[in-house]
């Protein structure tokens, strides 16, 4: 144990015993290893300022809570259920995975696994099917994080006999009674989640942290693209980079733009075109640089450019 922390006398009552002892916060911070998780979050997730701020706040609270617990300053287990709202491709799932590891490091979830489900895995198809199904998922998620993607599908307002309501009731019950065993994260698009919470006020009040994921700016999208390419051992040639900046601006204006996901898809298509271009000339001797770099033609061949010129 940390010798700097001298636990107060055996009495539980805090009002009688003045909790004494000092805590070396930096040391606690390092001991938990949370710094590196937060740094990793900063490094690997681009943009998302409000999200990072909120996660830092939660992490700080949990760190303090840990120390308080050690000093016998009793307090309720903080509610850690969260809801992530934001447009497609803004990194909700990625952040959920990170959150799980942060909570695990701080000791607020025991195992740190993430069970990611959608409506299909929770709601049954006939009477009596839903409860065992939901409970099975809950059991698997115990000690970790249950991530419910597109949570609003659980509630079908047009059909009042829908089994989704049963799943919601079981979820609410477990979220309330087993707060120390399980953290539930709901995710979905902003407006539909609002509607979902409006029709299930129980959910709204049981979730302490509502985090909104903003859309990425053009600069952030470019940085994301370069990070993704770097991870895949590709790079953009300077010309291709210029073209890709234009591509982002054009793609954003088009319908069905889903932020980082669209960027990833675009990169995948560019890789296809690059491979095709390289294979077209079989007699050429390739250097590692040729294989790694995406050229301007790979970018410009995109449909996005032809659509914008034609109208």
């Amino acid at each position, binding site marked *: 144990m940390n010798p700097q922390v001298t636990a107060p006398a055996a009495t539980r009552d805090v009002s009688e015993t003045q909790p004494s002892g000092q805590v070396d916060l930096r040391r606690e911070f390092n001991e938990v290893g949370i710094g590196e998780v937060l740094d990793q979050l900063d490094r690997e997730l681009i943009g998302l300022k409000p999200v990072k701020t909120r996660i830092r706040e939660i992490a700080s609270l949990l760190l303090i809570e840990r120390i308080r617990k050690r000093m016998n300053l009793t307090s309720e287990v903080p509610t850690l259920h969260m809801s992530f709202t934001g447009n497609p491709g803004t990194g909700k799932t990625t952040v959920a995975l990170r959150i799980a590891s942060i909570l695990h490091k701080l000791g607020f979830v025991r*195992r740190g696994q993430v069970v990611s489900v959608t409506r299909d895995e929770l709601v049954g198809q006939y009477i009596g099917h839903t409860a065992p199904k939901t409970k099975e998922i809950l059991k698997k998620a*115990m000690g970790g994080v249950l991530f419910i993607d597109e949570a609003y599908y659980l509630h079908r307002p047009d059909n009042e006999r829908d089994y989704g309501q049963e799943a919601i009731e079981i979820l609410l019950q477990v979220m309330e009674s087993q707060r120390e065993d399980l953290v539930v994260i709901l995710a979905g698009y902003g407006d539909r989640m609002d509607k979902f919470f409006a029709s299930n006020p129980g959910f709204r009040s049981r979730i302490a942290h509502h985090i909104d994921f903003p859309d990425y700016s053009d600069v952030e999208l470019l940085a994301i693209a370069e990070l993704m390419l770097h991870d895949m051992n590709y790079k953009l040639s300077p010309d291709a980079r210029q073209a890709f900046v234009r591509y982002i601006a054009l793609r954003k204006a088009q319908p069905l733009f889903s932020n980082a996901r669209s960027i990833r898809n675009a990169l995948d298509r560019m890789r296809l075109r690059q491979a095709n271009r390289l294979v077209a000339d079989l007699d050429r001797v390739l250097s590692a640089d040729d294989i790694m770099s995406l050229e301007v033609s790979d970018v410009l061949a995109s449909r996005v450019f032809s659509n914008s010129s034609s109208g």
Partner: protein
Amino acid sequence: MRVTQGCFSFLPDLTDEQISRQVQYCLGKGWAVNIEFTDDPHPRNSFWEMWGLPMFDLRDAAGVLMELNECRKVYGDRYIRMSAFDSSHGWESVRLSFIVNRPKEEPGFRLERHEVDGRNIRYTTKSYAVDRPEGQRYGGK
């Protein structure tokens, strides 16, 4: 008479926390934990009824405890045991089993003697509890 079957049955009854630690040990080994119950405690009765399905792919004992508490709500007046099934090749059998719930009163067993073939005697044990119909043993309705 206290029924002693499976692990830990000569120890005082396990608390929920102890049960939870044992279950966590099983999960750590990759065994699937099952909850079974019966009101016929005869030692040769090896097939107890299952509460739900075997719980594969669990990470934390809290899930098993949740089911155990559900089971206790319904069958709190019967014997409930946990068994841990090892599905790995070469084992494929129960590795550990222990009683986690028992009736308040355990009337015990009697020895029955059958006189057969002249002066030969065959012995058998019979639980006093099973004299009453199923569901009404151990002070059930």
